[in-house]
């Protein structure tokens, strides 16, 4: 049995709507974004973090995490284990995010693979005023 190999991240995207083709299962990501406005503190409507992973082997621990800009503490976390059966295999990881954002600032959406920081995407959260 081959030893586990941490995959590479071919892409880390954040989108509002994820549409899956009813026949092929292929994805269309709608309204990919890097910033949102929301009444603070507040909970925006759910959105999706999508990662394409490849070149892995064996079991891979995947943690998707969102950290606060000021304290670096976690406001959202999703843990999962996926298994690669072939190095050329590509796997798609989809995480539905529902969480409250306490303050404005630049949050980090982080993908940890086998305990190592594999990808990071900033997410600017701005106050929505006048609502």
């Amino acid at each position, binding site marked *: 049995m081959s030893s586990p190999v941490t995959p590479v991240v071919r892409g880390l995207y954040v989108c509002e709507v994820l549409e*899956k083709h009813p026949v092929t299962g292929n994805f269309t990501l709608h309204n990919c974004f890097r910033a949102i406005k929301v009444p603070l503190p507040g909970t925006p409507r759910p959105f999706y973090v999508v990662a394409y992973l490849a070149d892995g082997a064996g079991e891979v621990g995947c943690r998707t995490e969102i950290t606060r800009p*000021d304290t670096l*503490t976690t406001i959202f*976390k999703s843990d999962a284990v996926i298994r690669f059966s072939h190095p050329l295999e590509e796997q*798609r*990881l989809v995480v*539905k995010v529902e*969480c409250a954002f306490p303050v404005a600032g630049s949050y980090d959406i982080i993908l940890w693979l086998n305990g190592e*920081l594999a990808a990071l995407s900033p997410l600017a959260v701005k106050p929505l005023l006048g609502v």
Partner: protein
Amino acid sequence: MSIASDPTVFESLDSPVHEFTGVGYGPDNPAPPLTADTLLKLMRYRQKVYGKPLPDGYVPPPGIDIEELLKQLPPLPPPPGP
């Protein structure tokens, strides 16, 4: 050729899809505290992408020696010359 008469077929990626949800944390449900190991990994990455390892005014969790972690970071590259 119009799209309606285009015979192209976009086939399935046929790659596994893993769909998950997660847990949100807040004042009523605080997240587990950062460990020194996790914070160091985060600092290394933040230094690489943001140019500095920590946000301004950062206060480390109790029990973490931030000065010790800062010593373990790679040195910043020199500023670009004229």
